[in-house]
């Protein structure tokens, strides 16, 4: 069974009488631990779809099943709980301006009513090379630093899925590559990532790409070599040597991996 499946999913804005079609109907499936890209021109409905997936918005019709829950029929309260258990990052970081870095990260747990520990938040900041700015007001951080704090915040509640809406859209190429590398590492550790972008840079990372145009899927590419069989996971699959199967109940072993490999010094020869 797939982690996410959309069936005849439609999202209209405007009124019932005067609907503005933003998305759909679309049908697709996303597997656990896969890296999915949603590509398309501006106004094609990418953000609309991502907002539905992240439980920020409700569909007009059709159903969207994530982790065996139909998001279209969830109550506000359950939807909040769902949002607390997934990770999300945005193009413009969306950090809370009055809080410092570590407090912003902790808010990833706290907002959803989870206690969370400072140690884990500190570890995340350290992993992404910004622990020296832990007490800094986020207003003073650079764009790349802000996005890394935002990633830490998304990961602090140890989510199974990470949603990204143009995470590098506001970054220069150096910072962009840094973020790409982080996400690649996370994906390799088994995090399901669904990313909206119009950057071509991520294409080589993707297990599947959904192309949107005027709210409809025009193309849907699956790269077989990176497909992970859900029923019978094989950590030693030859085409995805880095993917490690993990028990979904266990937290992602993010902290002692991802960035620790090379402390996030950007390697110019990195092959994306």
């Amino acid at each position, binding site marked *: 069974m797939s982690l996410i499946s959309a069936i005849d999913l439609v999202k209209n804005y405007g009124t019932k009488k005067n609907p503005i079609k933003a998305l759909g109907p679309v049908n697709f499936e996303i597997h656990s631990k896969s890296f999915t890209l949603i590509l398309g021109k501006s106004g094609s409905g990418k953000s609309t779809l991502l*907002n539905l997936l*992240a439980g*920020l*918005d409700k569909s007009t019709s059709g159903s969207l099943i994530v982790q065996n829950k139909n998001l279209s029929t969830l109550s*506000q*309260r359950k939807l*909040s*709980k*769902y*949002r*607390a*258990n997934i990770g*999300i990052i*945005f193009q413009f970081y*969306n*950090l*809370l*301006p*009055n*809080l410092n870095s570590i*407090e912003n990260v*902790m*808010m*990833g747990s*706290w*907002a*959803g*009513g*989870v*206690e969370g520990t400072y140690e884990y938040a500190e570890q995340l900041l350290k992993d992404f090379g910004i622990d020296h700015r832990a007490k800094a007001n986020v207003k003073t951080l650079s764009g790349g630093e802000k996005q890394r704090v935002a990633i830490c*915040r998304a990961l602090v*509640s140890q989510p199974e899925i990470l949603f990204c809406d143009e995470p590098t859209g506001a970054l220069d190429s150096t910072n962009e590559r840094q973020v790409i590398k982080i996400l690649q590492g996370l994906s390799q550790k088994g995090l399901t990532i669904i990313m909206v972008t119009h950057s071509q840079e991520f294409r080589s990372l993707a297990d599947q790409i959904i192309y949107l145009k005027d709210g409809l899927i025009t193309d849907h590419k699956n790269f077989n070599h990176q497909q992970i069989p859900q029923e019978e996971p094989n950590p030693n699959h030859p085409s995805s040597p880095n993917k490690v199967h993990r028990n979904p109940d266990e937290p992602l072993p993010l902290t002692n991996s991802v960035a620790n490999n090379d402390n996030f010094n950007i390697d110019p020869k990195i092959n994306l």
Partner: protein
Amino acid sequence: MSLQAVLLILYKYFKENWLRIILASGGIIIGVWSITLTSFLSLGLSEKIITAINSQSATKYIQVQKDESGANSFFEISGPPKFQRISPNSVKADTVNIDSVQEVAANSTFLSYLRTSSNDPIECVNNLYATLDQPDESQLIPGEQPINPQTAAENSDGCYLINQNYGSFENLYQANKTDWIGQETPPTANEVVACYQCNPSSPLFEELSLASPQELLGQTLTLEYVKTPIHEPAGSIFDVTNPGITEYNFEETQTFEVKVAAVIDDRDSSDGGFAGANNFFTSRAIQQQASIVTPESVDFDNAGFIAIDVFIDDFQSLDSTIEDLQDKNYLVSSAAQLFITAVQSLFLVVTIVLGLFGLIALIASIFGITNVMAISVLKRQKEIGILKALGARNWDILKIFFLESTLLGIVGWIIGTLVGYLSTLALSVSFERFVLSNDSWRNNLENFGITDFVLPINYVIILATFVIALIITSISGILPAIRASRQDPVQTLKN
């Protein structure tokens, strides 16, 4: 959302926006301030006045009488009262179980009068106390009062009242300033302030053959205090319309040599002041000395009096003692109670009226705070969206904004109470500076037991303003908070 997170958000928000928040709570500050100041002031002043009343031992008693009919309220008496004469001992027996009662003594034990040396004491008092021919009760025009023996006294020949209670000297002097001749300070133990005419029907200046008020000044007069106990057997009836006092027993006569230190020319009242008031104003020292002496020949404790004074320890127990006495079927009158009730209700009205202004400021602040909170919600739409995207429930957002407005109220209340307290303090300090530094004012106040102007803190008022501030901010905060909680995260994140 954990409380920790809510508090962190509020703390950081307050840290960044403290000036705006203080300004926003201005209405609360002013309201709480004015309520605190006015109520501290009026409650404090009324307490001072009660202290002043309390300090006067002359008013620290309750007068009890017994009506023949057994009525225990003056309202129940129809027609002129007929009092049963009661003895101090019977009242003592009735009040032995009332803790607040300290002493029981006969009221109007004596009639004290001044007699110039020109006539016989018995004649003088008989003149003063002449039992006037009272008309028959049946002959009284309805509503007409029987003739009061006191009025008769004012018109007797050759005898003059000694004024026992003329309030403060300052009052006496101020009221008669235009008619005043001589020393402008209170009479000492062997001095007297005398009216020139005293008694229109037998003017003092004629008795003494004086040509002008100046001649009276400096003269030495021999004042005679004639004491006649007015008592009859206990249980006998005293009818107001027919007093039935036929003879006077002269138990004690005392003489005092006094020098006339000041004269009040009371021949003409058109220029203000007294006219024909048969008054001598002596120092309290003489009055006290004259009243100490108690003749041993009379068994006062078992004699019957029209009224008995019940002395109490303090005014705290006044009301309860009055109730206890009424339960024993006494007719009770207390000048102190009337006075205190008047003072307290007057200050209550003042407190309410002034407090109302504060309340209006507080109510008006609802609009200000609602506005500020609505702007805060608008300004922080994105923050709301972020928190919701991270899993915050509507209820969490509501909590944040509701607590924010509540904290606004608390900040306003703290500042208002503090400013209120400080301004009260400033008032009492300046009172003390300006009033107590004046020797004669200070002496007058000390006579009334007032030695400072400390206005005590009233915790009930502080608690009340806290509750009011919370109610006000809750009313102001609830709508913006609900609006905040209903924000659509997608819309708010778009900006």
